[in-house]
């Protein structure tokens, strides 16, 4: 059972605390993604799990054993780095065999493990090549091979796809996820890319400024973000926010935001006059609808990718982004009302930025 238990972990550099008491329990065989903007502490947390960074206070336990004072090489973990960190003077084979050789494993077993990992990663043809003769994607696969041969309890990935081009990134994303399903090893994966987090994770840990903002499955975070940070960070294009006040008149409820009347479902929480942030995702807006008046918009930009159309429009309360499936005949300069799907509207307290009750 290779769980990773992070208990009230803090990290300070020169007295300046950058991680403020993080608690995460990563289950056996789980694929957990730590995501957040740069400087949020996700890589530092991963490096503390790896043993490359000291833990200022709190505990980290791997497979039930507290590893605070256990050296990196004795933690039974393997790590894949952003810039691959291959040994430039060793062939692919030697790179993968290196840690096993250091352990004093016999040659036949090393050979079997390396060839097995090479088969899993389609590296068979490249074993005698030097790292400089490989493409970025191939290097990343060698870095993963180096991790696989050790048969570790936990795999750690530190932004492994950041140096790859967009197309290769999508391909490697699938490969890593596929690898995890086949090997079934506990995996902790750090990225700043919310799309990687959404597509790869069993559970996502969203971090900001050294704190955990929310932990949950990708869709639960997407559907029910705890605060405006998580709501704005996950999802692309990002959620639209409007600051305003709740208004009620009989069964009608709406948010009044700089002259805009933003419709709420009647059962929405929040007293009349409550200062709130009204959030709606671009994909939950549509042109035309029934009931309350829509948000009057003047289209500024129309971006069509063929499969979807995205528009940026001007409203009295600022810019808004909307995304529609398929193609739309909207043109810049055109004025249209946009309607939010009421069951997909999010409401946050303006002061605390926390989610308010159940909107739907």
């Amino acid at each position, binding site marked *: 059972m290779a769980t990773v238990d992070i208990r009230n972990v803090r990290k300070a550099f020169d007295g300046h605390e950058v991680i403020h008491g993080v608690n995460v329990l990563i289950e056996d065989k789980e694929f957990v993604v730590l995501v957040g903007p740069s400087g949020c502490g996700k890589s530092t947390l991963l490096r503390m799990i*790896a*043993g*490359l960074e000291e833990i200022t206070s709190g505990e980290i336990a791997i497979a039930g054993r507290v590893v605070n004072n256990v050296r*990196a*090489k004795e933690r039974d*973990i*393997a*790590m894949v*780095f*952003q*810039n691959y*960190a*291959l*040994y*430039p*003077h060793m062939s692919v084979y030697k790179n993968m065999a*290196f*840690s096993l050789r*250091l*352990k004093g494993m016999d040659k036949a077993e090393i050979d079997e493990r390396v060839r097995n990992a090479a088969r899993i990663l389609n590296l068979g043809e490249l074993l005698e090549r030097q790292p400089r003769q490989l493409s970025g994607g191939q290097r990343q696969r060698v870095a993963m091979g*180096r991790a696989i041969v050790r048969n570790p309890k936990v795999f750690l990935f530190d932004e492994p796809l950041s140096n790859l081009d967009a197309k290769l990134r999508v391909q490697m994303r699938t490969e890593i996820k596929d690898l995890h399903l086949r090997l079934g090893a506990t995996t902790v994966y750090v990225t700043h890319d919310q799309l990687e987090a959404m597509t790869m994770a069993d559970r996502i840990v969203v971090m900001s400024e050294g704190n955990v903002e929310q932990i949950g499955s990708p869709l639960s975070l997407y559907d029910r973000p705890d605060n405006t940070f998580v709501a704005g960070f996950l999802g692309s294009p990002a959620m639209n926010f409007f600051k305003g006040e709740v208004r009620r008149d009989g069964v009608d409820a709406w948010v009044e935001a700089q002259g805009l009347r933003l419709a709420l479902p009647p059962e929405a929480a929040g007293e009349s006059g409550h200062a709130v942030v009204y959030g709606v995702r671009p994909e939950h807006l549509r042109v035309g609808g029934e009931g309350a008046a829509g948000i009057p918009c003047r289209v500024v930009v129309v971006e069509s990718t063929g499969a979807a159309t995205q528009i940026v429009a001007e409203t009295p309360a600022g810019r808004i982004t909307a995304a529609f499936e398929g193609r739309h005949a909207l043109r810049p300069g055109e004025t249209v009302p946009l309607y939010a799907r009421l069951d997909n509207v999010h409401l946050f307290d303006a002061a605390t930025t926390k989610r308010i009750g159940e909107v739907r």
Partner: protein
Amino acid sequence: MRDNYKGYLFILPAFLMLLVILGFPAVAAVLQSFNLMWVSKPAFTLRAYTALAQDPEFLRSLSNTVLFVVVVVSSHLVIGLGVALLLNMEVRFKWLWRVVAILPWTMPDVIGGLVWRFMFDTLPGIVNSVLLRTGLSAEPVDWLGQPDLAFGAVMLAESWRGYPYAMLILLAGLQSIPRQQYEAAELDGCSAFQKFLFVTVPNLKHMFIIALVLDTIWESRLFGMVFSMTGGGPGYSTQILTLLSYKQYFQFFNVSYGASMAVVLATVLFFISLPYLRMSMRQQL
């Protein structure tokens, strides 16, 4: 096509400067060595070169130079690597240590030679003074008056003065090694020494060759330090090629003979620099 010409026009001033400053003396030295320039009756001859091969003073200077370069460059690389490793660590006042470490190199070699000459002086020199006071020696040692000691003293002085050059090159090399490689090695189970062996050494190889070649060229051409410290003496014991060439050319006015030594030295250095040239060409490709 017109644009190409413009390009050449831009490099013309630099090219002319190089031609005058570097090209002319080099060509002049070659011509003089063949008795074709600045002599009363120019006539092509290899006499200077045949004489060189039979001149015991030249052969002695050549072997002095080889020994000097081998010892001094080796010590530069060893000291340079050691200091570079220390300066690459996370320590307080790092900038201060770096400034201190580089100081010897900022000293002009003639001045350095004079300072060391005073330090090795028989009577007031600090070296003897320390030896006498600590009782390590009963009487003053004539460091620069005995052939073997003088050669050792000169090599020691130049080892001190020139190591920062190798150190700077190796420090730049150390700093370009990605930290993640050390971390990967740590996770792979490397000890500190194994990290040095499997990460530092292979990554530093290119810079090491650069430092080796450039320092060899530099030390082979050394003049001021030895000239001001011993003048080549006692006897011929510290006479290196540059000193002999200078003596023949400027003191005895054996222009052709002096120039031929410079040509021999330049040719040897050219071949020594080939691995460096090949390496830098390969990096550009």
